Each structure stands twice: as structure tokens, then as C-alpha cells.
């Protein structure tokens, strides 16, 4: 009995540690500006949540909504394209043998170890050469490359797409491209969802690239937007409330995406670590 109580105690204490900041954020977002500092931070007072949300959404002509929209476009669109491209490449590397295959794979694998932030500054320099910084594309285009996606889909395709099935599709007269999109993609689905989700999170959380690329706040993702609000709190105190409410709102899309897709990505998650 003792080990069980010990185990449950550990889990309970840490569940508290993980959830309390989010609970605090939620409770804070429901308070009026005055109550924020004068009432119990972990419990509700006057319920002002919808008023607060309204204030955030209408502040400065609704710039917050624009940031959320930008983030969804960067992360949603970027992750979708990244997944398709990485999936095709990983599949080809797993299922066809050709000259230079291992070389290509090793170079891409090296790319997994190159941190995205190390690329941000040179990308900025390159985009400045063609006067394309401070545009949507300066952040979007670099986001659609996922070397980790190629790595994961290669491993997964290797073990989940049988050669016999590809042969059968060929005998039925399907082209290689058609076989991929109508047969193989279904078998690779858990890996593809995993790649999509983790690329989505990586883009959504990316900070250095937008920070260095973007000047005009119309193109900001929500992280950069909230960061700029947070750094203006000393001059404009009401921004404190907006930052808290905005932070809460910005977390919701990711939680929804995880909950919605969890039955797929959980089975794909282990694949990357098998070998």
C-alpha cells in the first residue's frame, strides 16, 4: 500500500505544479483591473471575463485578433505544407533505393541538429538582400521546412508501408504519386499527424525569427505581439490585464489541436525514438 500512496502523492504534487500557473492565469483573466492585485490570486472575485476579452479584442482596432489570425496562418498553413513535403521526401527515402539516398538522408539528419534560431540571423541577412524582410513570407517560407519530419516519416514509412502493397498498386496501374497519396498516406497517418502537430507547435512558439524579421505589427504572430505589449506595461499599465487575457486566449488553439488529434499523434510519437 505504501508504494501506491507514494506514487499517487508524487503525481498529485506535480499535477498541482503543472496546473496552478494555468489556473492562476484563468482566474486572473476573469478579474477587474482593481481586483487583480487586491483579491486572492487563486480564487475568483467579480466575474469580468467577457468584458476583459472584449477589451483585448477591440484594443487598437482589433490588432490581437489579427495576430491570432497570423499565427494560425503561419502555423496552420506552414505545418500543413511542411508535413506534405517532409512526408513525400521521407517516403521516397524509405521506399526507393537510388544513388545518393544515404547522403541526402545524412545531410537532412544533420539539419535536425541545426537549431532553427541559428538560422534566423542569416535568413534575415538573405531576406534583406532581396528587400523581403518585414513580410509575411519572410516568416512563413522558412517554416515549411522540417528535417525532423523527413527523419520521422522515413522511419515510419519504412516499417508501416509494405513493399507488397506498393507492388499491388502498381499492378492495378496506379502511378507512384497516386499510390503515395491514396494508399501510403493512410498507412503513414499517425506519423504525419505527429509531424504536423510538432511543426505547428514549433512555428506557433517560434520567437527569434519573427522578432528579427518583422517590424510592422500587422504581420506579428501572437507571441511577438504579446511580447511587445508586455514590454510596454510600464508606460501603459492597462496592458497588464490585456497580456494576461491575451496569453490565456493564445493557449487555447494549441490545447484544442492537441485534444482533437491526440489519438493519432500518440501512436506516432514513439516512432522517432525507436532507432
Amino acid at each position, binding site marked *: 500500500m505504501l508504494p501506491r500512496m507514494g506514487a499517487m502523492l508524487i503525481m498529485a504534487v506535480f499535477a498541482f505544479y503543472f496546473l496552478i500557473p494555468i489556473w492562476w492565469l484563468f482566474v486572473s483573466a476573469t478579474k477587474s483591473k482593481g481586483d487583480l492585485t487586491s483579491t486572492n490570486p*487563486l480564487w475568483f472575485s467579480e466575474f469580468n471575463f467577457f468584458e476583459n476579452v472584449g477589451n483585448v479584442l477591440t484594443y487598437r482596432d482589433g490588432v490581437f485578433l489579427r495576430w491570432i489570425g497570423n499565427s494560425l496562418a503561419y502555423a496552420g498553413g506552414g505545418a500543413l505544407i511542411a508535413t506534405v*513535403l517532409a512526408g*513525400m521526401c521521407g517516403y521516397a527515402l524509405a521506399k*526507393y533505393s537510388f544513388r545518393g539516398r544515404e547522403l541526402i538522408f545524412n545531410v537532412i539528419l*544533420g539539419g535536425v541538429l541545426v*537549431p532553427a534560431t541559428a538560422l534566423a540571423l542569416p535568413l534575415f541577412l538573405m531576406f534583406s538582400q532581396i528587400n523581403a524582410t518585414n513580410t509575411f513570407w519572410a516568416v512563413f517560407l522558412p517554416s515549411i521546412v522540417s528535417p525532423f519530419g523527413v527523419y520521422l516519416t522515413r522511419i515510419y514509412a519504412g516499417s508501416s508501408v509494405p513493399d507488397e502493397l506498393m507492388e499491388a498498386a502498381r499492378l492495378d496501374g496506379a*502511378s507512384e504519386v497516386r499510390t503515395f497519396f491514396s494508399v501510403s498516406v493512410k498507412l503513414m497517418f499517425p506519423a504525419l499527424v505527429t509531424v504536423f502537430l510538432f511543426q505547428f507547435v514549433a512555428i506557433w512558439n517560434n520567437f527569434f525569427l519573427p522578432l528579427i524579421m518583422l517590424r510592422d505589427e500587422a504581420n506579428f504572430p501572437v507571441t511577438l505581439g*504579446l511580447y511587445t505589449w508586455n514590454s510596454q506595461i510600464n508606460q501603459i499599465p492597462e496592458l497588464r490585464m490585456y497580456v494576461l487575457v491575451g496569453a490565456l486566449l493564445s493557449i487555447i488553439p494549441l490545447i484544442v489541436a492537441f485534444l482533437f488529434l491526440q489519438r493519432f499523434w500518440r501512436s506516432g510519437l514513439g516512432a522517432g525514438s525507436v532507432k
Partner: protein
Amino acid sequence: MSRTELLNAEPAVLGNRKPKNKFKKAIVLFVAPFGVLFLLFYLAPISYALYQSFLKVDRQGTFGKAQEVFGGFTQYIAVFQNGPFWESIGRVFLFGAVQVPVMLGLALLFALLLDSPLVRGKKFFRLAFFVPYAVPGVIAAIMWGFLYSPNLSPFTEVTSKINFLSADLVLWAMANVVTWVFVGYNMLIIYSSLLSIPTEIYEAARLDGAGQLRIALSIKIPLVTPAIVMTAIFSIIGTLQLLAEPQVFRTFSSAVNSTFTPNLAVLTTSSIPNIHLAAAMSVVLALTTFILSFAFLKFTHPKGN
């Protein structure tokens, strides 16, 4: 017949002659889109940073026109003589040496507990521990920045006595933020790896009278080592790249200067602007990251793979 089908019809007919190139067009079609973008947005920037790092700005006289000329290793010498840059590297090494083992130790512990029959309500705990991963680093840093601040914190009892944003503690205050965000993510990777172990493996051990602890230590941990290695490599990369947390904490604490972490130093140098020195710093940092994660991989997997 679509165009792609036509493209593929040809090699199928000629397939007997050169079986190796049978699917050449399909292969190109699959690999090229990623390949081109990888070239443009990975290899080109790396090359460009290398190129920039070997240039320097030359002025003719004090007020002469500035001109970029080949500078050899000038920038790299400047990087090696740049005290704050090396201090920042030292700082993230110290950070990583403590934070990564603590985080992965906890992640392993939680994964093993979730995998054991001791814990009830696994679904709830799994989700509760993972939720912070949905919070972007910047947002997490802002949240914890508030939580650490004495006037807003729900834990005024603690924050009025201990100043988490002081020069002594601010590094560890950030370590807590990073741990809070990533423990659940690493736990899930290790946990999925544990789930993929066939349970028959435990039978023999159980017949020999091994308890849960013994099974965890002698069977489970060795079998999930590859997953732990992977999480460790990503953690090493992440540690050396710390940027969002110190950047945010600068607004909460004067103890965080503009060269607190290597990436912050790169950002600061590039906005002076000294692009060439910043490029050289980027290259040194990327190489350090690469060598460290590669060495770690080789060290833990001496036989390759």
C-alpha cells in the same frame, strides 16, 4: 491519363533495361520539393552566415566610405576575445548541466509511474503534465514573470522572502520555466516508448520474483534509453538556443543583461549593427550545438545509429 501517369509510364516500359532508374521521375518528384526548400532555407543560410563571418567592414580614413572586404579570421578572433559571449556560453552550460538532468529525470520518473500499476487516473495525469507544452515559451516566461513578481504572485509568502528575479536566482527561475514547459513533452516520448515494449518481457522477471522497482531499473530503463537519448539531444540544442525566456525576463529583472545567453548576444550584436561579428557568433554557436549533440549521440550509441 494525367501528366504524372505519363511520366511514369515510360520507365515502366523501359524498366527491364535499367531497373535502378525505374522510378526516377517519381523519386525526383517526391524529393525535389523538400530538397529545394532545404537548400534555400537551411544550407543557403548556413553558407551565407559562413561567408558573412569572413568579411569585415573597412573604412578609408575616419570618415571614409565603408566597404566590405575579406577579413580572414578577424571575426572569429573577435568572437574568441569577446568576454560576454563566452560568459553567456558558460551560463547556458551551467544551466543545461543542472536543468537537463533534472527535467529528464523527472520525465523518466513520471513515465515509469504512469506505466506502473501504482497510479490511478492515468489519463488525467498524462494530460495535466502535458498541458504546459501548449504554452509558447514567450507566454510561459511572461506568466512565470508575473508569478515571481512580489506584487502579483499568488505566492506572496514566498516571493516576499525570496527574490526569484535577483542576479543569484534568475537563471534558476528560468530553468524552472523551461522545466515546467518541457517535462510533460519528454515524459510522453519516454512513455510511448515504454508502451511499445511487449509485456511478455516482464513475465520472466516476475517469475524470478522481481518487483516493480527491479523491473523498472533492469528492464524498462535500458529499453527506453534511445528515447531518453533523443530527448536529451533536443534538450541540449534547446538549452544552447535559449532566447525567449531571457528576453522576456529582461522586462521583469535588471539582472538579465543584453548578453545573458548566446542567442541574446547574437541578437544584440546584430542590432548594433555588427552583422559580420554576429554571423561569426552564429556559426560558433551552431557548431558548438552540433558537436555537442553529435558527441552525445556517439557517446551513448558507440556502435552508430
